[in-house]
């Protein structure tokens, strides 16, 4: 469709968002991601029936965990986009980019940077 979306997005492809587990989202932040979003099919349209519903629950759990450790659950979101909906994909990418930009960098990077500066 040749739509533009921000270049800050790195895409990790999966057969279904049901494959996403808590540890994957945690490791993304551990490795320095400023924000993560899980884009699954529209609810009720999962090819594997309940994969995106499982992903939604795991995203909720991980958000709480991220709040507990101080990284911030607001950096992680679940989105539902139909596989064929290119414009919505680009729209969500732009929204997430703006949101994470406003939140600032991942705090775990910040602390090490500050310490180096100090």
């Amino acid at each position, binding site marked *: 469709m040749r739509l533009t979306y921000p270049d800050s997005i790195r895409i990790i492809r999966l057969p279904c968002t049901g494959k996403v587990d808590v*540890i994957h989202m*945690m490791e993304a932040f551990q490795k320095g991601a400023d924000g993560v979003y899980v884009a699954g099919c529209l609810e009720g349209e999962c090819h594997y029936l309940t994969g995106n519903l499982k992903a939604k629950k795991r995203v909720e759990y991980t958000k709480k965990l991220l709040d507990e450790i101080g990284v911030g659950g607001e950096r992680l979101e679940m989105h539902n986009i139909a596989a064929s909906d290119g414009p919505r994909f680009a729209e969500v990418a732009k929204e997430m980019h703006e949101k994470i930009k406003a939140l600032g960098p991942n705090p775990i990077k910040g602390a*090490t940077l500050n310490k180096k500066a100090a």
Partner: protein
Amino acid sequence: MIVAERKPIDEIIGFIKNYKKILLVGCNECVTVCYAGGKKEVGILASALKMAFKKEGKELEIEEVTLERQCDHEYLEEIRSIIDQYEAVVSLACGVGVQFMAEKYFSTPVFPGVNTCFLGVTEASGVWTERCQACGQCILGQTAGICPISRCAKRLLNGPCGGSTNGKCEISKDLDCAWQLIIDRLKELDRLDDYEEIMPIKDWSTERAGGPRKVVREDLKS
């Protein structure tokens, strides 16, 4: 199985905040089944702790190990060769495993990563409920397989109390009255006569109230 729940992260951080190198040990049995301390949860906790430390500008080195069990000598021995490399151990096993670890590795600080809750079953995915209180004198034969010691709020032995309403216990509308369940089942099994037999006063000496307990089998001692 033993049902446990992960402790709040800040509590665990409180235990290990002054260490730089720790061993995080999970258990492949009960805590795996209740998603509190198995291999997956060890990985998640390790990631969370590393991030929490990094956020404060500190580094935390964590080695992740999941043993088959932490309540048997042979499995705990598996870490003997590596344990001295670590300043402390956080064990995600139930209270039993944490204590056994502490006994075996006397000079290494051991901290619990989970709160051990009860002996119970997986009623449904994500829901665990208590079934047994390990009273040492099982009466399930007389109560159609439903335990009034663990499932009756008052641990009554001879029928429901006046608070039993519509099959629910008076302490919570989500709690089934154990005696209602027992009577229903005895009816189903055509054994309501068992209900008429009065159970005598329970000998509580085999319960924890009688002191820490021990079981010995002379034929199995080496």
